[in-house]
């Protein structure tokens, strides 16, 4: 297994000393099979212990190590050095305030996620009599399964220009997760979620750039969820205003 010297430019920001972030260059000997996160760990352990960043699982499950790698939102644990022949520029996720170095402030996302109630709101009568179980066929599971794969890494927020320009926009992952529960046959909470999803700062801030789905490391398709919510919300509006007898 080969080694090579890789040049990194890492965005540094110390809120107690720096007026604004700046790039710091590191030249490190890396093993060819390393990912960017391995290199950051190596820098922190052997070169510069002051470097701050989030990570946990190192296997694209926890969603903690999202950062901009050469301008693209990536999981550092999934970005192999062999795919980056030249200088590697590492920055905190775009569109989020920088807390320190590569650590961002994610309070906005967490608050928005809670607003769509991303949990089962049981459909009355959906539980089986006697056992209290919520049975579901494989076809009913398939309907929403891809949206369960979201790991809340927020790469889609860093890719979405609408979120950058309209900070009130509830954003791709939150809509995908709200839609995931709406599409669940056991759930009856759609009307409650619509308050957030069908609002101006819900799906209607999206102009279908599609970047969210392109950068998703778990191949979730938030853009699809958003368009599906748009269509269903439009049908809601028309039935409410043109065919009010259907709502009785």
């Amino acid at each position: 297994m080969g080694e090579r010297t890789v040049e990194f430019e890492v965005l540094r920001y110390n809120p107690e000393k720096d007026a604004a972030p700046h790039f710091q260059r590191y030249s490190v000997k890396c093993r060819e099979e390393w990912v960017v996160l391995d290199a950051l760990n190596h820098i922190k352990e052997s070169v510069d212990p002051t470097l701050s960043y989030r990570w946990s699982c190192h296997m694209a499950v926890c969603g903690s190590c999202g950062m901009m790698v050469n301008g693209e939102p990536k999981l550092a644990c999934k970005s192999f050095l062999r795919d980056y022949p030249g200088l590697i520029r590492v920055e905190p996720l775009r569109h989020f305030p920088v807390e320190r170095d590569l650590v961002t402030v994610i309070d906005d996302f967490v608050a928005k996620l809670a607003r769509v109630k991303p949990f089962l709101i049981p459909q009355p009568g959906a539980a089986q009599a006697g056992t209290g179980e919520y049975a579901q066929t494989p076809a009913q599971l398939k309907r929403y399964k891809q949206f369960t794969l979201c790991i809340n890494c927020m790469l889609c927020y860093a890719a979405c220009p609408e979120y950058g320009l309209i900070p009130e926009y509830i954003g791709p992952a939150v809509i995908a997760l709200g839609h995931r529960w709406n599409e669940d046959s056991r759930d009856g909470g759609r009307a409650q979620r619509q308050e957030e999803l069908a609002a101006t700062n819900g799906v209607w801030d999206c102009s279908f750039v599609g970047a969210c789905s392109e950068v998703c490391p778990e191949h979730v398709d938030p853009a699809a969820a958003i368009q599906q919510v748009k269509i269903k919300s439009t049908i809601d509006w028309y039935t409410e205003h043109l065919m009010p007898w259907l709502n009785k």
Partner: protein
Amino acid sequence: MAEQVGRRPHVRPITSEWIFRHPRYLRYMVREFSCLFIGAWTLMLVCALGRLSEGPEAWGRFLEGLKSPWVVAFHVLALAFAAYHSFTWFQLTPKALPVQVGEKFLPDDVIAGAHFGAWAVLSLAILFFAGAF
């Protein structure tokens, strides 16, 4: 006890530079920009209806005006943008209208293909009724 660290989150400004950061953003902007040409063409159509209502002479002058190289160039551009917009739109239809059959979803190509097919059939029908054949 650990020393209290002061918080001062830095907000990085958003500039229009994002459009050029990745080809996907440029493609998106071209798609959005196409609406200006489609809108302008629609306005021209409204003007055409106005001239038509004024009588054969006004209509004739309008048709004569369409032969100007500038107007022809505008139509070529508007057609190109309309085709680009339609093409990109139909490519996105599988996301908006997934069709589940049992435990599987119909392949994206089938859904987009059905839209492209309907587009072609309707375009041919319009050309037919317009007397192009």
